[in-house]
Every structure is written in structure tokens, then in C-alpha cells.
């Protein structure tokens, strides 16, 4: 076991090309999915937080449930959609980075939307009447509500990133874990562990933990600065 750790740190110290390629693919997929998930999830969460309509409670329960859907289920559904016989089979996105981004988009979006809704709804209760008093149009209300909660919303986005970068089921099914093409940190860890190459698996695990830790530190520092600045 100790030897595996020594070999893992050795691989990292050598900046092994295989590791770097896998890490870049992982970050490329997860960040792209995160950006798309934020662009859709944040306005969706804001809309659910501020609008009243029939079936809103049902929509919230469904959204909250989608946060916990196993990633393999998402993977299977996206696989069916992108497979040759599926509705988007012509695009040829199965076993590509694009396909993996689509799969992770469906994983991050409900999470970001659900957490954003909760954060924004709390703020909406406080600011609704002042906004109405100023006669701000609906889009302006959303804009200032999101602006007011911008530091809290980083937690929702961070949660989306953590879920995307650490999931293995969907990218394995949709990406196929193809060497030099769709292999990510999590799929590589699963593969290398089953092959017995613990050094590579451990080194990727260390990088994965480091990325999640760095993201958390970044968000923590941003929030600290913001709280000092804005109270």
C-alpha cells in the first residue's frame, strides 16, 4: 500500500503525460457542464423562487428529487438519446466529450436549480415588497435578487462542480472511457483499480481531491472577502 502511494507521488512529480491528459479532459467536461448547468439552472431556480403558479410545489419536489437521481440512470437516459437509434443519434455525440458534457449537464442543472431556488426564495421573501414598491420589472427583480445572493450562490455552483467532477456513472456509460479521448479521472480510477495499477489510480485520486479542495478554498476566500466588504 505504501509503495502505491510512493509510486503515485512519483507519477505526479514527473507530470506524467497520461495523467495530465486525463485531468484536462475531466476539467474540460465538468467545467463545460457546470457553465451550461449554471446558465440554465440559475434562472430556473430564480424563476421558481419568485413566481407563483399552479403546481409550483410539485415542480419543487420533482426538482429536489432530481438532485439525487443516480448518475448511472442519467447516463443510461443520455445514452439512449444519443445512441444511433435514438432521437439525436445523427449527431454522433455518443462516446465523445460532447456527449459526456450533455450527461453532466443533466446532472448539474437540477442541483444548481434546486439549491439556487432555496437561496433565492429566502432572499425573495425579504426583498419582494421593496422591489415591488420601486416598480422594478420582473427581469430587473431577478437580476438584483441574483446580485444580492451572488456570494451564497457560489455554494450552489460549487456543489454542481463537485458533483460533476466526482461522478463516474454517466461519463462511463456515455463516454465509454476511451483512452486519450473520453477517459476522465473518475473513469480512469475505476479502470486502473480493477487492473491493479494502484499508483495511477491513487495519483488521479490525489489530483481529484486537490481540485475539489482548491475549488472549496477559492469559494471560501471569495465569501470571506465578500462578507468583510458587504457585511
Amino acid at each position, binding site marked *: 500500500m505504501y509503495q502505491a502511494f510512493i509510486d503515485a507521488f512519483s507519477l505526479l512529480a514527473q507530470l506524467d503525460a497520461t495523467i495530465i491528459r486525463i485531468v484536462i479532459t475531466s476539467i474540460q467536461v465538468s467545467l463545460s457542464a457546470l457553465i451550461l448547468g449554471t446558465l440554465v439552472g440559475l434562472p430556473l431556480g430564480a424563476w421558481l423562487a419568485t413566481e407563483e403558479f399552479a403546481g409550483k410545489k410539485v415542480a419543487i419536489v420533482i426538482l429536489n428529487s432530481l438532485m439525487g437521481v443516480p448518475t448511472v440512470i442519467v447516463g443510461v437516459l443520455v445514452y439512449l438519446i444519443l445512441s444511433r437509434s435514438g432521437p439525436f443519434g445523427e449527431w454522433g455525440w455518443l462516446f465523445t466529450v460532447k456527449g459526456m458534457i450533455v450527461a453532466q449537464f443533466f446532472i448539474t442543472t437540477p442541483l444548481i436549480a434546486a439549491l439556487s431556488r432555496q437561496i433565492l426564495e429566502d432572499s425573495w421573501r425579504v426583498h419582494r415588497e421593496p422591489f415591488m414598491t420601486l416598480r422594478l420589472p420582473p427581469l430587473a427583480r431577478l437580476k438584483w435578487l441574483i*446580485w444580492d445572493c451572488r456570494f451564497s450562490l457560489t455554494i450552489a455552483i460549487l456543489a454542481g462542480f463537485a458533483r460533476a467532477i466526482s461522478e463516474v456513472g454517466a461519463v462511463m456509460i456515455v463516454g465509454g472511457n476511451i483512452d486519450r479521448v473520453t477517459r476522465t479521472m473518475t473513469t480512469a480510477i475505476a479502470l486502473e483499480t480493477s487492473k491493479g495499477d494502484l499508483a495511477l489510480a491513487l495519483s488521479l485520486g490525489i489530483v481529484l481531491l486537490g481540485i475539489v479542495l482548491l475549488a472549496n478554498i477559492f469559494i471560501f476566500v471569495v465569501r470571506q472577502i465578500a462578507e468583510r466588504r458587504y457585511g
Partner: protein
Amino acid sequence: MDKLLTLDQIKVFADGRTIFRADHIEIPMNGMIALVGSNGAGKTTLLRLIHGLIKPASGSCLSPFEKHESALVLHYTPMLKASVREHLTLLRDANLTVSDSVVDQALASVGLGHLANNPAQKLSAGERQKLCFARARLQNPKLVMLDEPTANLDPNASDDVEGMMMQLVKESTVVIFASHNMAQVQRLADTVLFMHDGQILEIGSPEQFFKNPQTKEGSQFLAREFIAQ
């Protein structure tokens, strides 16, 4: 005298009960108008009704002012996580033309010019009220409504806010304010509206109301208020 408001067969419901009602009431447009009454009497409801924040279940509420010609300063306005200046520039999103120089002038006029770039959440209660006042004035209203504008303020801040209210009247703006401070009402008001249990029971001059209230509820209210004060 012109009428500020004509309420006709109006009823406002909330949570299954009537929180405001009036058969036929005409409120004259006369300088500064004070709304007085116990908590729950309907003062805030009336202000929100005039501003268009709530709609009556029945009846009509007619005013010579367009909706965009009134401004309402709430009893407590929570601040955004934004600078003092941003609290005024957000009016641009309400389709108002507010240039940077106008914002600077507005902040200077309420003594907040030096705090323009500070976070609004760090303002004191008095400074927050002044900021809300500055924002209300930037809306170029003909009617300004203030819900307990000096509640929780120290005497100096109260004096500043009262000065701003008098300045508005000098500029021919109609001011309606709700207050529990009877001394303030006597100092500032040209007309007093006494409200009780969701109804306007008396409309008259401060002298008339304070010396000779016309209703039993008005007498009891004044007795309680002056004992308390």
C-alpha cells in the same frame, strides 16, 4: 380643495379577514397628511393600496396621480448586498433616467455623499432611512408615502428626516406618513386621518383631532397614546 383620494365601497381582504374597508371617503389634498391609529388599524394597508401594491377585493380607489407618480418608503427597507450608490442606480432598471451626477446630488442632499461606495448593509438605521428617502425623491414623485419614517431613529436622525419631509412639501409634493409619534403628527401634519380596525373614522385638522376627537375610538386612542407618552 382637490381630492387626494376617493375611496368608494372598498374592501381589502387578507388571510380570510377584512383588513380595510370604506363606504365612501374623500381625502383632501392638503400638504402633509398623517395617518394615526393603533397597530393593525390599517395604516400600512392604506399606503400599500394607494401605491398599488395591493388590489381591493371590491370597490374603487381613485387618485389624480398616475401609479408611477407615487413613491412609498416602507417602515423597514432591507438593504441589498450592494453599495449605497447601487441602491440608487437600480432605479435605472425601473425605466427611470438617473445619471451618475444626479445620484451624487441625491446622496449629497441627504448627507450620504461620503458613503456612496460603502456597503449599504453597514449603514445605521437613520442613514438607511435617508438613503430610502433619496431613492424616493429620485423617482420624481408627486406623492410620497412614508410608513413610520422616524420609528427607531434617534432624535437627530428624526429631525433630519422631518426636515426632508418638510422640504418635499415646500417642493409641492404631497406627503402622507403613518406615525405613532403624536408630537411629530402635531408638528408636521396639515391633515390627520384617524384609523381604527381597518376603517378611516376621522379626517380633520390636527387641532380638531387632538382637542376634540369626533369618535369614541379616537378619544380612547388619544387617551392611551398620551398616557403612554
